[in-house]
């Protein structure tokens, strides 16, 4: 989702970077086609003070397959030893904030996308606290409905200027309009899109970006709507 949205924003000519703060289970490098062998420095190395953040930023604009603004990716390390170390030692999440600010400055970014671990933890809270727009992605099930209620409440307390909900993996049998209306009423947050669960999405898994590969699909049209709202903010 973050890969798709950031790419769509980059395709609108904006300078974009994506930071994968999901240090426990990194994965966003996959749709961008950034191989592990290309990664010398990752976000982990910046956190450990081993490199400046821009050194861990990789130009992945070639993944757009079309002209647009440059797009960079700061991946989390995929090495088991690095994941183990960061989980074991922990880190001061305030370092992340310094890193984000430095990245915006050094790469002259228009948009910085922060991809977080699902749920609420210190990194997520920090990311929410410093964001201008929070896109909350939820699946239409009771567990996510409850979790979203908590996150929305926290985000409101952190004064996030713009919040958008994206309902992901909605089954085709569901009434999308009804789902959207119910979610907007209960959370008092606009639903930017309801993304249907599609075969293409399942088949693609994380190996590519559906909005670029299958732009004609409903799921891709809905993603463009979210990107448009981000661009309009």
């Amino acid at each position: 989702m973050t890969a798709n949205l950031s790419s769509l924003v980059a395709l609108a000519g904006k300078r974009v970077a994506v930071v994968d703060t999901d240090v426990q289970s990194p994965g966003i490098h996959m749709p961008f086609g950034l191989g592990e062998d290309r990664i010398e420095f990752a976000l982990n190395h910046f956190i450990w003070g081993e490199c400046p953040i821009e050194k861990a930023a990789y130009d992945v604009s070639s993944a757009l397959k079309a002209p647009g603004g440059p797009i960079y990716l700061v991946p989390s390390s995929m090495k088991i030893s690095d994941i183990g170390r960061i989980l074991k030692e922990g880190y001061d999440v305030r370092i992340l904030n310094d890193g984000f600010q430095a990245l915006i400055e050094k790469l002259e970014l228009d948009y910085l996308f922060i991809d977080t671990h699902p749920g609420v933890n210190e990194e997520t809270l920090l990311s929410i606290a410093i964001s201008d727009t929070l896109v909350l992605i939820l699946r239409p099930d009771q567990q996510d409905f409850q979790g979203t209620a908590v996150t929305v409440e926290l985000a409101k307390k952190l004064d996030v200027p713009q919040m958008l909900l994206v309902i992901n993996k909605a089954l085709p049998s569901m009434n999308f309009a009804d789902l959207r209306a119910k979610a907007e009423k209960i959370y008092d947050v606009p639903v930017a899109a309801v993304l249907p669960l599609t075969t293409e999405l399942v088949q693609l898994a994380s190996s590519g970006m559906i909005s670029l590969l299958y732009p004609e699909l409903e799921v891709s049209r809905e993603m463009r709507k979210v990107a448009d709202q981000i661009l309009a903010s």
Partner: protein
Amino acid sequence: MIHLPFSILNFFWSYGVGASLLGAVGIHVGQKARSHSQNLVRQAEREKKRADKLANFVIPIGLALAVETDLNTLLEKILLEAKILSLADGGTLYLVTPENTLRFVMVLNDSLKIAMGGTSGKEVSLPPLNLYDPATGVPNLHNIATSCALDAQSISVADVYSAEGYDFSGTKAFDKKMNYRTISVLCVPLKNADRTVIGVLQLINARAPETLQVVPFDEHLCQMMELLGLLAAASLASYLKTKKLTDQIAELKIQIDEVKKERQVAEITESDYFKSLQSRAREMRAKVKGQNS
């Protein structure tokens, strides 16, 4: 008189015709024995055919029904397969409704070229049958289909016109109107795993495989239909369960446990980390706002 046979026998013996008489008796006995053994052979053949039918038809039908996801196709398959197995000329499938009626969901009759319900696209125009008298609440045991549903037992009638105990006036009126002759009828309850009757499978005019003459539904055919009924009921129950689940998903309710939410939010917001983050975020946003204004 008692001696007469012996006398006759003696007479025939005397005249040298005894052998031919005995021979005749012997022939007679032989025919009877052969006829008996032929019957046994036929019976064994029929049993084998039924065993084959069970293995080759009933079980595969059960499997085919289990994977069917379209209700109309499922209903049609149940009735069609039951008709094919029994070589019945006609059949009706009823479903028990929450209002305690038997609703006609599919009606087929080959001779009369009738096909209603299922995938035929034609609605079944017949009114539902009351399982209980609406005024008195007395169970409707006069009708063969409702009686079958109420007692959860199969009912086989060899000839509608000489049967007693059930009211076939509707069937007879139908026959007269359509110039048809309903003879044998079999009703099989479709029972859930918890033995609840969810429908009734009714077959009309079974036919002998060799002659295609209308015959009663014999005991073995009834057993086979009951087996098919069990499989059909399991498939229907599974379909209805899935449908209920799908409907629930379609009408998804967003329920938030407010107490739990407040507790979870409080756990986070009362932490020092959150308080500090909140104040820093406010400062930062105020700064950005000041820069932009």
